[in-house]
């Protein structure tokens, strides 16, 4: 408890890069308390009663949006979902104008998913409401990073000194970036694995190792985090083909034999079964993929409570 900051003072959560290790710990400890709410007879607390939350998803998402929606409902906030196709953004309204309209409707918290990196920063600097980044381009996805850390901490007791392998499409992955920033702050060792087109050496400047040979990394890993191959973002020059990817970087049953017995298998979802991971492994004893979903709810409740619960004026 000694290294804990006494109080949480941020109204926005834009990325994990700007958080201190103490602040990350603060969120994880708060999430412990909110995870327990799910086991109560009444699974709802009045923490954000009277607050209005707007889920502004300019880029499509089902699981993150649903997780935020459920988290907000468990905190008794009122919630409105706005998706890209249904919003005025398709009619040419700028993000800034959309945000001002939302504020004029007395929104207290805006959860933003956007295809452009930096969109949440832009929004946060122009509105008084709390802004939570739910994924911006290939930049950051802070609540996913936090729920991954929470799950590792829950299963392994601590994060420091663990070896975490992040495998797959790092170049286009905001999940990877948020994980890298947070894991390093918490004292973990990180190795990125994938084809050189998707895992360029430049990432080593962040303080991680880069490998293009999965078999060399698996035996020492305490956690493997398999990222989804993002078909929608791929272009031919980066990605030779699924068959070749599976042959070199898919976590097959054969390769999984190289893992330590207590190595955790993680995946942010949605899973491409048979591509990043063998179907049986995804459902196997080492997989914590569904724990990640459950913990995501607790972590998002904690983030909404902390950022949405402080005075903004």
């Amino acid at each position, binding site marked *: 408890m000694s290294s804990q900051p006494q109080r949480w003072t941020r109204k926005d959560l834009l990325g994990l890069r700007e958080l201190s290790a103490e602040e990350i710990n603060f969120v994880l400890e708060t999430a*412990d308390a909110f995870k327990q709410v799910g086991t*109560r007879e009444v699974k*709802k607390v*009045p*923490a954000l009663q009277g607050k209005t939350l707007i889920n502004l998803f300019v880029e499509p998402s089902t699981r993150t949006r649903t997780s935020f929606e459920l988290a907000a409902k468990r905190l008794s906030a009122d919630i409105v979902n706005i998706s890209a196709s249904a919003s005025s953004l398709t009619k040419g309204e700028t993000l800034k104008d959309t945000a001002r309209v939302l504020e004029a409707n007395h929104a*207290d918290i805006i959860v933003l998913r956007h295809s452009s990196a930096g969109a949440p920063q832009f929004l946060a600097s122009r509105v008084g409401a709390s802004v939570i980044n739910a994924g911006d381009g290939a930049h950051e996805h802070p609540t996913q990073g936090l729920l991954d850390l929470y799950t590792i901490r829950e299963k392994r007791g601590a994060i420091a000194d663990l070896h975490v392998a992040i495998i797959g499409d790092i170049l286009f992955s905001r999940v990877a970036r948020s994980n890298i920033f947070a894991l390093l702050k918490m004292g973990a060792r990180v190795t990125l694995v994938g084809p050189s087109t998707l895992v360029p050496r430049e990432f080593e400047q962040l303080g991680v190792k880069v490998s293009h040979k999965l078999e060399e990394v698996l035996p020492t890993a305490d956690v493997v985090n398999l990222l989804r191959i993002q078909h929608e973002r791929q272009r031919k020059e980066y990605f030779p083909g699924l068959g070749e990817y599976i042959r070199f970087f898919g976590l097959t049953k054969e390769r999984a034999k190289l893992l330590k017995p207590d190595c955790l298998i993680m995946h942010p979802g949605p899973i491409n079964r048979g591509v990043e991971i063998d179907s049986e492994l995804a459902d196997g004893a080492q997989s914590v993929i569904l724990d990640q979903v459950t913990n995501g709810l607790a972590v998002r409740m904690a983030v909404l*409570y902390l950022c949405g619960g402080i*005075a903004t004026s």
Partner: protein
Amino acid sequence: MSKTRITKETGAIRIFDAEAMRRALRRIAHEIIERNRDLAALILAGIPARGVELARRIAADIEAIEKVGVATGVIDVSMHRDDVGTRTGLPVVRASQLPLPLEQRTVVIVDDVLFTGRTCRAAMDALSSFGRPACIQFAALIDRGHRELPIRPDFVGKNLPTARAERVRVRLENIDDEPDGVWLLKPNE
């Protein structure tokens, strides 16, 4: 009861030293026993952080007096407070820990200082989300007055008339790394 003493350095008035606090908690333990015939149905639920420690001490006193164990718990009120959006910094939320189910049990909420009563109300709401206790009672080491809600404690260590701007400072050895004690602080000290 020890004499109140003004320390020259700070101007703080000492209300309890360690011995006086021990006696006050012992008396609360006796009163809880007197009021609750069925100690097996009792849960002493402390509000973090000092209420948890006080609940533990009262439970130990009851066990020493009656030779029966008493259940204890933790009731965090952060999620049930009524001042959302008005504070500039939030303390960490702790998970509540209560022996469930609460049905047929008597829960004694334990806190260090009773002031406006809002924390007690939040604690009662928090308890309700875990179930429906047969009875809820409230024990406070210090009742300093200035209630803003119709709430009255069942067990009090000391009634301490205060001015609104004064502060009551409670220190517990196991939590604060300072000797047990209660002080009344004048404004801006």
